[in-house]
């Protein structure tokens, strides 16, 4: 007798979202990237479609970052040249897209001007053909100026801009609407707050398929199980037809993984932990793969080797398991 296999039927799917614009659509990208669209739990291809593979964005900063040497050494030649840095990520390390963080704008740091920030964005746009994710320096007032200017200067490029938060989402949302970009809605590891922010942004009339959610994550060993369950709840919500939870998910993997003690501590301090670089790579790629399983769509990463491992894993996960 044939065994009847029970399959979960889902009412709805994750929103599909396009990043970047080619010349036909008023941009200068050589390719665009589509994320989301899943109509099943992550990689449950036997229950629904996973039309677009998760993507990896490599992180580039506008000033030389204070990163761990195990990562920074790969970019030593380009760390103060964002354009060249981005180009290296794409051409040498296979980044699907570039995540440009304008940390240098921070008033307590390098305090780069709005014009300088805009110039950096243009430099990176000119250097690579992949779509761009651009975020500010996380100073509310400065970001308001910088991101508004970036949105305007890059009108038509269909960027992904961050970060909108509950207390501070209006100006970025307005900029995204006027200049036709997408927004990252960031909430503090709580499914309700994640949903609330999406409602607030959509009530300003930004289309739902222009929002990506960053529900905040923790690195491996630092609360990743919370992140896992939030991502899972968001996906279940999306599949059950909750439009306000149906956006693709972005995860700040590199940032979280590399700030852990396990990734950053030197071998001299912890000989029993083994070689530091290998540890860091494993920490970053394991964090990424757990979140992939939970339903992340865009992974923001740093180390070339971790990127390689995760991209390979994505490829394998995308092999159809439908039956």
């Amino acid at each position, binding site marked *: 007798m044939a065994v009847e296999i029970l399959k979960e039927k889902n009412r709805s799917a994750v929103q599909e979202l396009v990043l970047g614009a080619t010349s036909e659509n008023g941009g200068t990208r050589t390719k665009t990237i589509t994320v989301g669209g899943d109509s099943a739990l992550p990689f449950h291809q036997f229950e629904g479609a996973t039309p677009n593979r998760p993507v990896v964005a490599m992180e580039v900063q506008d000033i030389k970052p204070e990163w761990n040497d195990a990562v920074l050494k790969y970019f030593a030649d380009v760390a103060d040249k964002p354009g060249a840095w981005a180009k290296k990520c794409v051409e040498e390390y296979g980044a699907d897209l570039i995540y440009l963080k304008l940390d240098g704008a921070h008033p307590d740091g390098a305090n780069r001007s709005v014009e300088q920030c805009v110039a950096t964005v243009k430099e990176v746009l000119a250097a690579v053909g992949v779509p761009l994710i651009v975020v500010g320096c996380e100073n509310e007032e400065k970001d308001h100026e910088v991101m508004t200017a970036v949105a305007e200067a890059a009108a038509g490029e269909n960027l992904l801009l961050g970060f909108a938060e509950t207390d501070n989402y*209006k100006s970025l949302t307005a900029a995204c609407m006027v200049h036709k970009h997408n927004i990252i809605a960031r909430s503090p590891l709580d499914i*309700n707050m994640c949903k*609330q922010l999406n*409602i*607030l942004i959509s009530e300003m009339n930004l289309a739902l398929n222009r929002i990506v959610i960053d529900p905040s994550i923790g690195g491996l060993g630092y609360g990743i199980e919370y992140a896992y369950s939030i991502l899972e709840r968001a996906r279940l919500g999306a599949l059950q037809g909750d439009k306000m939870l149906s956006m693709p998910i972005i995860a700040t993997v590199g940032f979280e993984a590399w700030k852990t003690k396990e990734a950053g501590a030197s071998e001299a301090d912890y000989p029993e932990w083994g070689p530091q670089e290998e540890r860091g790579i494993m920490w970053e790629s394991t964090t990424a793969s757990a979140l992939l399983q939970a339903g992340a769509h865009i992974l923001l990463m740093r180390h070339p080797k971790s990127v390689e491992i995760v991209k390979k894993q994505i490829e394998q996960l995308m092999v159809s398991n439908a039956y």
Partner: protein
Amino acid sequence: MITCSVTFLPDNITVSVEKGKTIAEAAQIAGIKLKMPCGGEGSCGKCAVKVMSNRVSDNVEISLDQKFEQVLACQTEVSEDVTVEVPVNARLGEHQVLLSAEDDNALGTFAFEPLCWKVTITLSPPSINENASDWIRLKGELGKIVGDEEVIIGLPLLTNLAHMLRDASWQVTVTLLQQDGYVEVIDLQPGANDEPIYGLAIDIGTTTVVVYLVDLCSGKVLDRNGTYNKQAVYGDDVIARIIHSQEKNGLQELQDAVVNTIDELTNQLLKKTRIEGTGVKAITIAANTIMTHLFLGLDPKYIRLEPYIPTTSQFPAVKATEVGLRSVPNANIYCMPSVGSYVGGDIVAGVLYTGISQKDELTLFIDIGTNGEIVLGNKEWLISCACSAGPAFEGSGITCGMRAMHGAIERIQITPGTYETRYETVEDGKPTGICGSGLIDCIAKLHHVGLLDRAGRFTADTQDTNRIRNNEEGKEFVISWEKEAGVDNDIVITEGDIQNLIRSKGAIFAGIRCLLNSLQIDMEIVDKFYIAGGFGNYLNINDAIEIGLLPDLPHEKYQFVGNTSVKGAYMTLISRSALKAAVEIGRKMTYMELSVGNEFMDEFVSALFLPHTDLSLFPSVQSN
């Protein structure tokens, strides 16, 4: 027949009426409900409207406002086409329930039989054949009155008895007091004495204290008084108070604070009514478990620690002097029994007053105070839970918040576009602050006109209207300018206040959801919702739903019942059977602890939104 058209603003409704009809009659045709407490006699002045154009022939004219002619709608006949503006305070609020009127019929099915009462008895003198002692002779007669219960007397009164009986020709007036299981003689007066005796019904809230002065002979409430609980200086909520009670002298300070609050309120009442404090014989107190502990000087320490155990939930009767009440030295005090550590005598009083435990209907009772307590049940069963809502709805911890007293803004309208405000205050006083119902109204209206997003942040900027401005911590909205207010500052609501209120309403709503979820009961099958709390004269159900404080259900299901804690205390003061019923309610009710598991937290966060993260729970609000 000549007809005239009457246009009402700001509704912009025009109706035609026969010439000679009054504006009030025209308003009725237009469906505009005016306040007419004197019934159209022209004596209350509540129905005043502004004539914006044309003349009307008026019998009475008052000129409170120089710009327009103000006339009494009930007295003014329409003689030609006219436009009138109906001010907010001339309108009857939707869902307006007045408090004081209800007390008259508070007893419901319970008999009027005060806790303390007087009887005059004439004894037959003893003889050689009938030689029972004086007390047995008196006790025998009293027994006929009190029935089965034992009657006792203390030594001080006995010392006088022999002489008094003989001097007054065997006639004596006895003051009796119901105690738990027996009746005590607390006073003896020679002859027939009809001096009145009095009682107090008291609600000790975490934030406010309310006292009713009651004539025990008639059962009438002679006057009411309320103020903030002086314990507030030791912290806003019960947890802070418990912490303070553990400090050196802390427990004594807390007891003194609440006793002083009661003394102060009582002295004011006694002075006003010219009654001697010694005439007050009985007091009933309804309070949450912690307030009752602190009032009696019981250490509440273990209420806060798992597994949350109070010293007692049935409290002994005490004498006023034992707790240090000076205003009423002869009074005997009863505290309403509690259910658990976090559901106290105030809730038992509320259940008693609303009669939930006598009805077939499934009823949800919510008492919105510093603690939000919720009771669900009917005559078969009662289950309760509590959540910490904070004192915001009682006007505490809010920039311009205040108790619902003279001058408190309790209703607000905001004009879309211009953001001009109009408001109603308690007793039509000059505005001095905002009370709970005004705060609820304010948030609903701010969201309605688009000034507030669903997270409770102002969407508008200072350049959009001069009513929005920046303060140290964000933005604020000016409800009433200093020049129109009865205080030396603008009356504002700040973003911080709004966050505070959203947390309060979120806690209440989450509590309701958790209680119903745990019993797997749908909101829809609850027949009746009673809402209690010291909001003001009324609570606008529409607004309360709009901000997500109450579930989105048909308005008929709701009834606002005001401060049921003091009303329940009052019932037990004037009815011994009501007191017995209260004890029974306390025993019958079960308590559910919300802090077990994550559900409450999850529900709470999803309720921190206007009206709620799950908009599908509020279909009527969405369609607005």
